């Protein structure tokens, strides 16, 4: 019987007192989540430093940036979209598609800048497609973006097929730019992707936590109807978030292409789930309205550092999968655990 109320508690804003209490609990736990993440991060760092002889090494930081920077960048628009209660599973495919667009144009002798511009435009268009289907047509975003996930990757495959650009006889991408894959920013150990991510993260954080727009996003995620009745343009916000997501992911595609100084249609295959994992582990509620950019940044750092440490220790990659899954479970179980226990007590009391 108690479990019946589950769906209710989740699907309608709380009315009864008990419900309210639960909501407050979750509210507080959300506030505490970042603290928990800091602890975990410290734990990972200590573990890495203690176990791996090469972990405490300036290059580690650079490599970490190389490995997770472009994924982290995709996690930012995802954060905003999840904040509004939607999801975008097409991010990784968009990364691949934009890369392929750049690749095919480059292959046909376009010069770099116009090719990049077109690729970013494709990103905007793809995002707009998601936006129209989700925000304007009101279709469930999970279904829509599974569709575009397939579509975008498919288009990428049509564009490049078996080609890896630069193919034999092609020009190499501008060395000055592909340099971001091999050299940190002079005088630092920061990869360019890291800095770009951090800058975007700050922008994202300010927008989400300190502007009317960000407040609107919270409202939309928590209670779309109430938001609409407060003069918030719910559909418009969602639409543009998808466009932004498209552009940012396309941009990530450019970065990855330069970082690898090459591109093939399969670039970034399957990363969408990693992105979602990062965002959720960052404490962003899958139902929207709750979460912080800080949390997501911490989550990125944790996943990145963990991967570095485990690879250096040559731990089976399978273990890394398991840890990812475990962290994800923890991120939802911990905040709900308390309530669950409470409910069990209630239940026992009734018996």
């Amino acid at each position: 019987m108690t479990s019946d109320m589950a769906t209710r508690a989740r699907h309608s804003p709380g009315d009864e007192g008990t419900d309210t209490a639960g909501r407050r609990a979750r509210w507080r736990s959300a506030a505490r989540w970042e603290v928990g993440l800091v602890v975990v991060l410290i734990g990972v760092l200590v573990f890495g430093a203690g176990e791996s002889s090469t972990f405490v090494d300036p290059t580690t930081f650079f490599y970490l940036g190389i490995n997770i920077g472009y994924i982290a960048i995709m996690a930012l628009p995802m954060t905003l979209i999840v904040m509004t209660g939607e999801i975008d599973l097409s991010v990784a495919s968009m990364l691949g598609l934009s890369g392929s667009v750049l690749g095919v144009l480059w292959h046909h002798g376009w010069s770099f800048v116009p090719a990049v511009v077109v690729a970013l435009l494709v990103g905007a268009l793809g995002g707009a497609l998601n936006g129209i289907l989700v925000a304007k047509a009101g279709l469930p975003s999970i279904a829509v973006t599974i569709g575009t996930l397939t579509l975008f990757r498919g288009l990428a495959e049509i564009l490049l097929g078996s080609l890896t650009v630069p193919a034999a006889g092609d020009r190499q991408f501008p060395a000055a730019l592909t340099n971001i894959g091999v050299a940190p920013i002079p005088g630092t150990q920061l990869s360019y992707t890291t800095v770009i991510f951090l800058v975007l993260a700050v922008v994202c954080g300010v927008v989400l936590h300190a502007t009317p727009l960000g407040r609107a996003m919270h409202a939309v995620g928590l209670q779309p109807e109430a938001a609409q009745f407060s003069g918030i343009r719910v559909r418009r916000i969602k639409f543009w978030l998808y466009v932004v997501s498209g552009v940012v992911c396309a941009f990530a595609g450019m970065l990855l292409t330069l970082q690898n100084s090459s591109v093939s249609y399969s670039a970034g295959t399957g990363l969408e789930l990693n992105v979602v994992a990062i965002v959720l582990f960052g404490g962003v509620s899958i139902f929207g309205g709750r979460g912080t950019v800080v949390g997501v940044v911490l989550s990125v750092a944790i996943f990145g550092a963990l991967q570095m440490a485990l690879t250096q220790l040559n731990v089976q990659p399978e273990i890394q999968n398991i840890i990812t899954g475990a962290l994800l479970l923890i991120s939802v179980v911990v905040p709900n655990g308390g309530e669950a226990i409470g409910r069990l007590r209630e239940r026992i009391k009734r018996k």
Partner: protein
Amino acid sequence: MHRVAGIAIAAVLASVSIVACSSSTGGGAGNTGAATAGGIKKGLTVYFIPKDTQNPYEVLADQGGQKALAEVGGKVVVSSGTQDTAAAQIPSIQAAIQAHAAAIAIAGNDPSALCPSLNQASRAGIKIVSFDSDINCGSSPDHLFINQADTRQIGTSEVDLLAKQINSTGQIAILSAAASATNQNAWIGYMKQQLAKYPNMKLVTTVYGNDDPATSLTVLQGLLSAYPDLKGIISPTTVGISTAAQYFDTHKDIAAKIVLTGLGLPSQMKSYVLDGTVKSFELWNPSNLGYLAGYAAASLASGSASLQTGASFKAGSLGSYQVAAASGTTGPSVVLGPPTVFDASNISQFNF
């Protein structure tokens, strides 16, 4: 674990048996005597970075490498991801750099995407050896490609093998791995050249099974209904050929019409060859490939080998090898030897 033990024994047996046949097929120059770690430093660490840690073919190669380094008193670290992506291999390259490894032996998941990281490695003084699937980084980094068999030779011999069985006439198709798979694409390139010699054989299409049984099966089935008059299929990938073989095995009528050949693991293909579903196919010994890669890496790291054309080095029980000149996109390379053709007569001797 009993399984690991089993595989290890298998590997040893395999290499021994190959020694026999490789000398018979006139592979590496003579001397199949006991290995001597000629001028190779002790205690070298070589990072083996396979396409992924699970692919059985790669696992055999890794074990070959471990065997080689064991012989010269060094050690192998096998490191890679669970999926065949460049992104999964880059962290391993970084780990190798940070661990100041002596050399890296890598099977590239992507011809170019790994180059930046490998460049860093080589600048850090790490010798680079690629095996199974070459990387294509233009000038740098310098690296030695351990070619399982001369790329051209694989392409041509596949076609010849098929031609023999369908007496050089009819439609044929190729069932490959991923569309972006470097070595498959290279071989297919040479197959097309070789087909010019057979005016009556027509390559109708190439389909891609992404080295996934399910996908391979779907495209194979589509292929069959698309080209009813198909006479032969070449599948230059172990997953592709075994999937096709399994399908033919259960559809004798098709097996009767269509000849299947390509590159496959004897262990996976044995039953099909013995019951006649597949007449013959090719492969080399993956553990020998790894073994050779191991020696090459160790020798380069010890300065006892160089990338100069004609430079030679000793590869333990496989004898000594010569560096072949760069040709086309392939840089300096050594060739393990011509692929072994497996058929009912010899397949039982191999257990890899």
